[in-house]
């Protein structure tokens, strides 16, 4: 009954109705897509790097220059291990999300016919798997004999490699990865001796799989040993960052420290731009919903004032307060529903536009009912005040001329 009344009355102010329908449709389309983008960013920011993040600190230096100075790295590591609270210290390259990475596409056969997807290179001095907190889940870890230098093209000389499970399953599905080989040039192959659960590369890109990395064993060398990573207790992090940097500067006054800090801070830095975009989108969404709600409330208020007489007549004819309240709530529900129907079309159009111009997947359908529910709730919340005021209109108004 009620719906028929409402529907009959709607065409009386179709222009304003259409405006609200349009406003809700645009808000719906923006809301769904923005929340989708926010979610994408948040997923990315939550990535599991595979290392024990809260126990690591680092000091990135400009290195020691020539390879002849490599013994200085060993000296620095020994000194760092001497600091109270440092459990272990290594020099390495390829810390997850350190904002740079060396990537290569290994070949899977000696004749160089089959090529693997891009893999991020990780290399470190003895003990670096333990320092990072990586545990070998299959095969064995590196032994001291495995660590060696690098060749003319900066490729590790040591013929063994450890890969994360994700890469092993991609390269050798259903097979035992231990003993498999990858080639980085016709003459340089590496045999897989172990598998770690997970290790993420230094830099994420849309066309890279984050967890495809290859871990090599190297002695201290100029090319890959500028980054000192230490394992410490969480409460010692701040002090040891300061002390280790001071120690390194004392040892080598010409050394340059590019960056230092706890790994957790470095990780947050890596995602800061994503975080700020997510916050901005969120702020705009909230502002947008607020404006939409204010618009609905303003118009509903106006309609109530405009129809005081009709409301009075209905009340005089026996309509209860509840009936009047429901009338305005139903009206709002119908208008918002109209907006959502149009909004679904707009949402898909906007999503199509976004997928064409940005690296963004298709919007999952689940966003639509959730978005619709949100707008229905906001619409009902916005109309509640005016509707209550309408229901308070006394029947006696019918007898007065306004």
């Amino acid at each position: 009954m009620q719906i028929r009344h409402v529907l009959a009355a709607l065409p009386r102010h179709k222009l304003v109705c259409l405006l609200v329908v349009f406003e809700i449709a645009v808000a719906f389309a923006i809301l769904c897509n923005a929340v989708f983008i926010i979610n994408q960013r948040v997923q990315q920011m939550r990535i599991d790097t595979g290392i024990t993040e809260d126990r690591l600190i680092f000091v990135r230096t400009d290195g020691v220059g020539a390879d002849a100075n490599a013994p200085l790295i060993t000296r620095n590591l020994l000194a760092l291990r001497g600091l109270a609270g440092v459990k272990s210290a290594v020099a390495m390259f390829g810390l997850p999300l350190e904002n740079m990475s060396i990537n290569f596409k290994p070949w899977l056969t000696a004749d160089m016919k089959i090529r693997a997807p891009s893999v991020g290179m990780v290399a470190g001095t003895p003990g670096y798997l333990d320092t990072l907190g990586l545990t070998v889940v299959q095969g064995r870890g590196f032994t001291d004999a495995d660590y060696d230098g690098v060749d003319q093209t900066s490729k590790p000389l040591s013929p063994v490699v450890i890969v994360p499970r994700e890469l092993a399953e991609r390269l050798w599905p259903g097979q035992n990865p231990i003993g498999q080989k990858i080639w980085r040039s016709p003459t340089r192959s590496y045999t897989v001796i172990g598998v770690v659960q997970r290790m993420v590369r230094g830099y994420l890109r849309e066309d890279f799989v984050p967890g495809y990395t290859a871990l090599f064993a190297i002695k201290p060398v100029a090319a890959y040993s500028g980054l000192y990573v230490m394992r410490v207790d969480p409460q010692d992090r701040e002090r040891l960052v300061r002390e280790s940097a001071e120690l390194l500067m004392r040892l080598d006054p010409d050394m340059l420290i590019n960056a230092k800090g706890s790994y957790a801070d470095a990780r947050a830095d890596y995602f800061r731009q994503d975080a700020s975009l997510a916050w901005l989108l969120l702020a705009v969404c909230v502002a947008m919903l607020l404006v939409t709600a204010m618009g609905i409330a303003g118009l509903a208020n106006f309609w109530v004032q405009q129809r005081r007489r009709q409301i009075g007549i209905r009340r005089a004819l026996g309509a209860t307060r509840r009936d009047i309240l429901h009338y305005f709530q139903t009206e709002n529900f119908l208008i918002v529903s109209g907006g959502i129907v149009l909004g679904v079309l707009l949402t898909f159009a906007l999503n199509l536009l976004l997928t064409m111009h940005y690296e963004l997947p298709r919007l999952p359908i689940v966003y639509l009912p959730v978005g619709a529910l949100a707008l229905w709730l906001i619409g009902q919340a916005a109309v509640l005040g005016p509707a209550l005021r309408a229901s308070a209109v006394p029947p006696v108004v019918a007898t007065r001329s306004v």
Partner: protein
Amino acid sequence: MFAYYIELALRSLKRNRVLTALMVMALALGIGATITTLTVLRLLSGDPLPQKSTQLFYPQIDPNAKEGYIEGQTKPDSIMTYVDAMNLLQAHRGTHQAAMALTQAKVIPKQANARPFFSDAVMTTADFFAMFDAPFQYGGGWTAADDDGRAQLVVIAGFLNDKLFAGANSVGRVIRVNDHDMRIVGVLKPWAPQPRFYAQDLGGRSYGDGEAVFLPLQTARAMEMGPQDIECYAAVPDVKHIETAPCEWLGVWVELNSDEAVAGYKTFLDGYVKQQVALGRFQRTETSLLDLMGWLRQEQVVPDDVRLQAGLAFGFLLICVVNTVGLLLAKCLRRSGEIGVRRALGATRREIFTQFMVEAGIVGLAGGVLGLLFAELGLLGIRHQPAQYASLAHLDLEMFLFTFVVALVASLIAGILPAWRACVLAPAPQLKAA
């Protein structure tokens, strides 16, 4: 008459303060968001060298293997091998031409207790400064002979001169770069094209203060300074000797002053590539010669995030305008009695229309003033973001004026519908109803 409309409008706006505040607030939020993102978008898509950009061209060729090549579709590479860059330079087909790569220079100050530091550096050839109109505070650039002679010379940026020599004329003095003593031949005035078009694809930053050290390419390479970015298209026998390796790491820019010169250069470039194909060095014949702005467009210098924000802000503004239309319309419909009286007393439709548009305009101006405040707040927020361009985000005079244009246009568009509805109302029924 106009003053009377303003008085009427103010009285009407005062009568319903909440509704007025809602309209102004919504419009201001939309305008604030739009102006903030537009300022950033404009900042990022601006012309870095307005006086010269139409004469600067970026030649591209493609030394990659045949596999994956589709004639007419595969774009040539964005950087060049040393061999090709030198061949193009030595042909001297442009008014000026220079090859460049970015690197990190470790500067060791001579003062006691001063720590060494890294500076962004450009290794390039002699024409760089004349071609890009880089202005000198003291001294000048080096010569082509210095390039060939691997002279130990540098040009430093003004800010580095301020830091090391307190801004004094330092030409002839020596600084230590990567453990070599280098003589300063020139000090630049503040110069940092935004975005740094020549750093694009060379692994450098696109915004910010600019590089601190400029040194001759051959000299820098003799000091074993390596490029920031290097792309190899075949198996590399030796990464130390990138001059002969199948690796790309240089950008080449050419100054061409007329259409004939551009056409001539393109012919030369095509010819050069065909010659390389005949020699067996190249397999692909695609070339490209984009001007500066064309190159920036192709490189999509404006980050996706910024475009996304701008699009979002416009969507938001649209909602705000629609919202204002709705509220103005509601207000105007409530005043049909008042309109009826005015019409009956002799006001023409045009006068009613004008009256309502003035009211909308006042809402717009108020929204604009508040929107400007929001935009300043938004830009303050942007300046605290970690992006490279963050510190450059300021509202300029043009954007300031643009804010009011946007506000006024938005509110007038929002006002047209209600004003039109108001002026077409027939006076008699309204008077009767009242």
